[in-house]
């Protein structure tokens, strides 16, 4: 068996039986997505999101959405774990689409409704808003698949492969790590202040004033933690100077990765040509 961490070395899967923690959820090391290397996943996520935004044809958008939903099923993530996220995304997009409709002035053959502020809803408004909803939903779901099946550590490997400066990749990783520490501190502070009778009721100004009672100790705590982290990394040879560094994780390229990368790029090129050269897939 090989290491599920994209290592190029044959190694029994560490922590066999454990589930891997992605950005958002836990997923099985046996998930087919775990076999795709993180750079391929990143490229697929970017191209599919871009394609979703380029195409403005309700059928094409629907087909793309169906493909992404199939991908979601393929990811072996139980619907229960992310249904709240999907419901939240769908709800937010619906609100955005409706808001868009209320303020749009898209001419059409049938005017269904005239708003007092000069906007109106036609059959083309409904058409446009549906496309708007579908394209954002498709892009969100593509991102969701990526976040559900990729670990922070894998993303950093992909970024390092793209030859992004090491310091940037490291800062990105460290920021993710410090964010979780910061959140813990934030909740601890809120609870500590509430325990002394503070509540967050009142006007926005009053709430902001109360926030300063959280911000000051939060900054004190986080600066101290950053200082400690700084010593901990220096004690393990970290330097900003240009030294030769290696990486324990390597990107593993399989045939499937080349296939998916080619497919993604071909799809993007075809969609761009179809829309901007031949004028297909545009909103009419």
């Amino acid at each position, binding site marked *: 068996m090989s290491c599920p961490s994209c290592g190029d070395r044959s190694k029994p899967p560490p922590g066999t039986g454990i589930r891997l923690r992605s950005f958002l959820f836990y997923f099985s090391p046996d998930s087919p997505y775990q076999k795709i290397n993180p750079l391929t996943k990143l490229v697929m996520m970017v191209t599919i999101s871009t394609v979703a935004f380029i195409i403005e044809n309700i059928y094409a958008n629907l087909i793309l959405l169906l493909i992404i939903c199939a991908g979601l099923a393929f990811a072996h993530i139980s619907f229960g774990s992310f249904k709240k996220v999907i419901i939240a995304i769908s709800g937010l997009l619906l609100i955005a689409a409706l808001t868009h409709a209320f303020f749009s002035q898209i001419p059409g053959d049938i005017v269904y409704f005239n708003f007092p502020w000069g906007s109106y809803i036609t059959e083309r408004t409904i058409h446009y808003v549906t496309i708007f909803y579908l394209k954002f939903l498709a892009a969100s779901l593509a991102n969701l698949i990526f976040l559900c099946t990729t670990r922070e550590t894998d993303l950093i490997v992909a970024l390092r492969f793209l030859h992004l400066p090491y310091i940037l990749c490291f800062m990105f990783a460290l920021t993710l790590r410090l964010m979780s520490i910061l959140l813990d501190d934030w909740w601890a502070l809120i609870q500590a202040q*509430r325990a002394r009778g503070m*509540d967050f009721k009142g006007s926005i100004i009053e709430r902001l004033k109360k926030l300063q009672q959280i911000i000051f100790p939060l900054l004190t705590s986080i600066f101290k933690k950053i200082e400690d982290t700084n010593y901990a990394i*220096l004690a393990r040879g970290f330097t900003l100077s240009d030294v030769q560094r*290696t990486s324990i994780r390597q990107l593993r390229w399989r045939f499937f990765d080349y296939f998916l990368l080619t497919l993604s790029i071909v799809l993007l090129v075809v969609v761009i040509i179809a829309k901007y050269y031949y004028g297909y897939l545009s909103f009419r």
Partner: protein
Amino acid sequence: MKVIEEIVVKDLWWRYKDRRKWTLKGINLEVKKGESVGITGPSGAGKTTLCMAICGLIPHEIPGEMKGTVKVSGTDTGSMELRDIVRNVGILFQDPETQFVSMSVLDEVAFGLENFGYSSDEMWRRIEWALKIVGMEGYEEKHPLELSGGEKQRVALASILALQPRILVLDEPTSNLDAVGREDVFSAINTLKERSGTTMIIVEHDTEELVNLVDRVILLYGGELISESAPEEFFREVDFLKERGVWAPQVTELYYKLSQSCLLRCKLPITFDMAQRIIRDILNDRKISPSWLLSEKPVARDTLDVRPVIAVKNLWYTYPDGTTALQGIDLVIHKGEYIAFLGRNGSGKTTLAKHFIGLLKPFNGQVVIDGIDVRGASVKELASKVGYVFQNPDHQLFCESIEEEVGYGPKNLGLSKSEVKKRVKKALETVDMFPYREEHPFSFGKAERQRIAVASVLAMEPRIIVVDEPTTGQDMGLSKAMMSLLDCLNKKGKTIIVITHNLRLVAEHAKRVVILHEGKLLLDAPTRRAFAQSELLRKAHLRPPQITQLSQALRDIGFPSDVLTVDEMCNLMRAALSS
């Protein structure tokens, strides 16, 4: 054979930037290759600063003024690059959280190796070795959020070990951990000592563990090295150490007390095994008479206020991530009780206590505080009944002066200015901080800041005070001072609930213990009865105080299994020896 000095500290003086006082004052220290040296001393003695100087962070990264020299393997650290120093000197810090900089165990252990440009094969070899030493094989792909404090600290140790340093500096590696985490880390250090012969500097407040790990102990006090000898010699000066905030192992203290009263004239034991052997030798297989046994004086229920101040009925709580933290807890606490909540990290102690002030609301079941159901009460309402002192005092402090800080809570309760002033004065007098009322809270050390945090809660005049981990990261002297303050408040009629991992202090102060395990109430009993149940304690991953363990080990010769303090054991021994 020529003895090689791995570390030579010569007349080292260090003063942090913008500070007038020297933190280290003329330290001289020599450590031989393969030697393990323990450093102990009260908080603020300069222990961490000395560790920083040995690993080169002083003077390379930390601004300040330095006099004297630190030589590692014969080279002055001042003339070396920091990277070259840390290749030979690994340092493990106190806080496992801030040391963990990567998003998986594998990346964390590889971090140092990557920085030094090791090849992939070499990295895998070293990582495998280091994780095996600390017992963390199989955890390579775990996320930091999935690890306990003890596991994180072991990973941090592995990440240092992977660099295979000649010298290892461990700066209070277990002070933020529960009993299980501590045991795991100490066992990893022991394994390392046995297998690799690495030179080690270990800073530790827990002298009972320290004696098993080191060849020599030094005492730092006020920035000076004031005592240095083998553990057997070092801990002989029990009173001298106690005056300087260092508590000798309980077994040593026992024999010291007995020798003071001329009942014993033998070499003071420093380990559990030595102490047990000596007692058996002295008593020479005589069984001690049951008449010498302690008479338990349980708190009579009828002396307690009949109406409970806290009533918890079938309490269930599940966190939003799905973790069920409490499962059907039933608990009644009466006015004036002094209770300790015990259990390993994640057992549900803090979750339960947070219900008392309404920070968490029951998922199922009921929590009634002084007649008020917390479900229908706001935190503000409950704050006048329950004072909650958080583990980190800095989470509670944000005002410019101590007076303002302590007055913040009463002001939130809508009290008049004169009433606030009266309460602030009373609270500050209780914690002996009134003369400093105009100073900034952050101009004091952690112990004083904790007292300020207690005062800020006292000023709201709650009937119940919950103190969460008051002794974590503190030396024994300061921990005892905090517990004495709680004793004093308890005598004034306050109900005290303390959440702690320090069972020695629990045995000396708390009257009742509530042990939680995996969200369930495992045991609720008077302290003496609870500590006698070694099987249950083991199940909850708790280890009774050394003196209780000693009496339990001597059960076959008639010792009771519920001795709680050194004084009690001393009385038993006195009776046995004078018969």
